[in-house]
């Protein structure tokens, strides 16, 4: 090999290595640049008062920067979405992977892919123009902008993740399990809910976790339909404000360098840490499901 070529290859391979490391660098950069601003909030409030404070009045004087209502808002909306989306998604994954006739399967999968592709702001727009007035009239509420509306929107946004990953897990169950059960005289249904589900379980749990991660971090749709009241929620039929919506809605107004501004970065750190934990757990389950 000529010398020039060797030198060129050397540089290309270093570039490839650098790109390989880029993801790590970006994750570290995200954490650094969130923390850089976020630590300053601790000059105004203690960590305990920030995470556990019951009042979020960022522009009153003095500002009260407790994010407990926002954390509970996010939890309420997420919980509602999970209750709706996890059973539905897993059931649909079983139907698509095991029951649906071949032709229908392709069609159903395309529908799920379309749902995954619809931008969240479009779902938020439909939520505010159709779902919110419907909930208001149907349930006789003073406003349809509620945690419930957010949960329904988010359930839809989590479904594609839950369905496609569960489906992979179901398809990865060894054929012998299924054939063995059928050979022993079990019906297809018995095979499904007594045999296949056990083989697919780690993958299905991972699917649910990733769905939860998606829901927790979702911003636009949830901001548009939940009413954004920063108070501790007592149920799903009230307006709530999530962590994500708070950042998106207030970042434009917060004066740079103010406690409010730093607090929004603090919320960013909280979101980053939570999504990190969720994704890490999901990955452990996925690794386990692949090992089988």
């Amino acid at each position, binding site marked *: 090999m000529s010398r020039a070529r060797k030198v060129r290859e050397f540089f290309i*391979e270093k*570039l490839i*290595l650098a*790109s*390989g490391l*880029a*993801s*790590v660098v*970006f*994750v570290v950069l*995200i954490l650094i*640049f*969130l923390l*850089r601003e976020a630590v300053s909030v601790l000059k105004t409030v203690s960590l305990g008062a920030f995470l556990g404070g019951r009042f979020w009045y960022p522009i009153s004087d003095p500002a009260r920067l407790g994010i407990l209502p926002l954390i509970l808002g996010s939890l309420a909306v997420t919980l509602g979405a999970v209750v709706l989306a996890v059973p*539905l*998604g897993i*059931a*649909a994954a*079983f*139907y698509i992977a095991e*029951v*649906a006739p071949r032709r229908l399967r392709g069609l*159903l999968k*395309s*529908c*799920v*892919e*379309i*749902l995954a*592709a619809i*931008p969240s*702001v*479009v*779902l*938020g*727009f*439909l939520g505010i*123009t159709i779902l919110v007035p419907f909930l208001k009239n149907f349930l006789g509420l003073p406003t349809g902008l509620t945690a419930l509306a957010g949960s329904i929107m988010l359930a839809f946004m989590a479904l594609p993740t839950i369905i496609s990953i569960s489906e992979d897990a179901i398809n990865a169950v060894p054929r012998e399990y299924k054939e063995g059960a059928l050979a022993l005289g079990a019906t*297809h249904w018995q095979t499904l*809910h007594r045999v296949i589900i056990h083989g697919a379980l780690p993958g299905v749990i991972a699917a649910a976790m*990733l769905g939860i*991660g998606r829901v927790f*971090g*979702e911003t*636009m749709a949830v901001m*548009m339909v939940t009413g954004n009241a920063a108070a501790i929620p007592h149920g799903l039929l009230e307006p709530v404000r999530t962590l*994500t919506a708070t*950042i*998106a809605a207030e*970042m434009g107004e917060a004066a*740079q360098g103010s406690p409010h501004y730093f607090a929004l*970065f603090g919320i*960013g750190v909280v*979101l*980053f840490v939570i*999504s990190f934990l*969720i*994704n*890490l757990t999901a*990955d452990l389950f996925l690794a386990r499901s692949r090992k089988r």
Partner: protein
Amino acid sequence: MKNEAAKEKIGFGALLVATLVIVVPVILIVGLIIARGFGALSWEFLFTMPRDGMKAGGIFPAIVGTFILVVTSIAFALPIGVMAAVYLHEYARENLLTRIINLAIINLAGVSSVVFGLFGFSLFVIFLKFGVSITAGALTLGIMTLPVIITTTREALRAVPQSYREVSFSLGASRWQTVRHAVLPFATPGILTGAILSVGRVAGETAPILFTVAAFYLPRLPHSLGDQVMALPYHLYITTTQIPNVPEGYRYGTALVLVGLVLIVNVAAVILRSKMRHRK
């Protein structure tokens, strides 16, 4: 036995109902956007500037802005993403470093889009002094879409038969020569699929551009990468929540243009992928 057959019927019936509860709304959503948005589409709507506080006129600058953001962010993310996948699949061994990289990719894919927005603001807009600009927005969106490109490129590399590499090595080719001539050409459709999918993702995202590039109202086209732009998703957001009395047709029209763009792009990706499978 009869009892079991009945149970099976009920069980499968329940699964079908669950599937329909998901699929029917999807069809309704797309149908509704097309039905209500189609009437708003016109030459004026697509190719003129907004007027009257965005209650009339067109959405041309938002379409152009989204197009620019897509092109610039993919131009940034595609080379890095493809090379990262090449590293992971063709060079790296199974060791701690690889595990850390994989974890970082998973984490990058899971971070909330609004957190990307904060990060982009803090690093690009403030620290690197790019200001609220196309550069800042494109870099933020590019980093966000990296995991999509890396994952799909990796799948494409995985699908290239091992024998291609072995033949190339046995002819005395170096690792890079093998990657360049015996692997990448066969992975191109898969890599393109990844690029196309991230186009859809980038075009639809709102939260990362909120504080990095999006302009509320800017009835002219950008002159440089230092300019702000309007963008379709942000435009839909503000005409829905910030400005009262925007005609509904105008909103549905914007939604249709955005959804149409994203869906066309996704269909293209699906076609490309199925072609790739046929070739194998």
